[in-house]
C-alpha cells in the first residue's frame, strides 16, 4: 500500500516536471526539468 502511495507521489512530480518542460521559456530551464525527470521515471517504473 505504501509503495502505491509512493508511486502516486512520484507520478505527481513526473507530471509537474513535464508541465515545466513545456512551460519554461528559457531553454536551459527546459533542459534542466527534462534531466530532473530521469530519476523520477526510473523510480516510477521501479527500475532503480
Amino acid at each position: 500500500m505504501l509503495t502505491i502511495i509512493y508511486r502516486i507521489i512520484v507520478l505527481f512530480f513526473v507530471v509537474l516536471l513535464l508541465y515545466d518542460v513545456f512551460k519554461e521559456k528559457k531553454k536551459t530551464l527546459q533542459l534542466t526539468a527534462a534531466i530532473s525527470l530521469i530519476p523520477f521515471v526510473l523510480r516510477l517504473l521501479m527500475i532503480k
Partner: protein
Amino acid sequence: MKSFLKLKKNWFALLSILIAAAASWGVSLQFRQMLAREKLFPAPSLTQVLHLHDYHPALKGTHGDTKIYRFEGKEPGGKVLLLGGTHPNEPAGYMSAYLMIENVQVARGTLYIIPRANNSAFTHTDPQEGNPQFFTIRGKKGLRKFRYGSRDTNPIDQWPDPDIYLHYPSGQELAGNETRNLNRNYPGRPDGTFTEQVAYAIVKFIQSEKIDLAFDLHEASPEYPVVNAIVSSESSQDIATEAALELAFEDLHYSLEPSPYNFRGLSHREWENYTDALPILMETANPIQGRLRGKTDARLILTGWDKMYLKAAKLGVLSVPYDSSGLPLKVRVGRHIEAFQKIVEIFSRDHPDKAVRILNLPSYSELMEKGIEEFF
C-alpha cells in the same frame, strides 16, 4: 495548424524530453543487467532444483525467490545445507557455493545448496562505495561474469527503513538499515517485511527438510576481529572445535567464535533456537569490504591486493596475516571449501547414521595449485 505551430514553438521541449527518455532507457538497461542471474552449469549429479517459494509461497514471483540445488547420494544418510549469498558483497561465500554446484558429487546423504540466499541483495550495489557491478573469471567453460551485490535487500523490495530496527521476536534494537540485512532477520515471520519473509522461508526449509548440519558462508574486512573464523552455537561447537584443530594441522588457522546468546537475528543463533540443524557460520577476510582500501575495482575482488592494506599489516592493525600476495579469491574460496569438507567429515564420523559423503570437491592445496578458473 495551431497545434503544428505549438509543436514548432515547443521543439526544444520535445527534444529535451527525447534526451531524457534516451538517458532513462540507457540507464535502465544497466540497472536491468543487475537483475539477471548468472548462468550456472550444475554438476551431472544434480538431483533436483527446488525454490524458496516451495516453503513460503508468498515469495513466488518476487526478487526474494531463489533456487535450492539438491544433490542426493545413492546411499541414505544425513542432510547438509550450504548457504552462500546471504551478503552478496561477500563473493567468497557465493563463489564457493557456485563452485560446489558445478563440481560436487554426493555418494551418501543429501546436500542442499542455496547460492543466492538474499537474491534481492544481488540486484543492486551499495551506494557511495564505488563498488564494481561485476567481476569476471576466464574458466574452463568460457568467460564467466559474476555479480558483486549489496549487503542488504534492495530498497525496491523493502522500504522505508525505520530509524530503529526491532528484531522479531526478541525486540532487540539495531540500526534502521539492518531491517534489510538477512543475517539479522532470522527466524523471520510469514507476514513480516520482505527480508523477514526470506528468513522465514529458509528456516521453514531447514525444518521441513530436517537438515542436520547447516552452513552460512561469509566474508568481512581484514581489520574486523571475526575473520578466518568458524562461528558455532552450543550444539555445533564440538565439531567446530575438532575441525579447527584438524585444519590447524594443515596449516589453515581459524579462530573459534561462540554464537552470542544475546545477539539475535543471526543465522547461527536462530537456527540453533528454531531448528534441529547444527549451525556453522564461516568468515574469510576480504579487502574490498574494508574501510582502509584504496582503489576499488573488480581486480580487488579477485586479487585481494591493496597497498593500503599492506601498510595496515605493517602497522599491525589487521586481524589476519597480509603480505604482498594479497588475499586472492582462490584463497578465500579455498578456505571455505576445505573447512566445509572437514566439518562434514567430522560430523559424519560423530554421527555414523547420518553420515554424508561428498566427493569431487577440490582441497585447499589443489585450489592454490590450479586456481579457481579450473573449476568454472
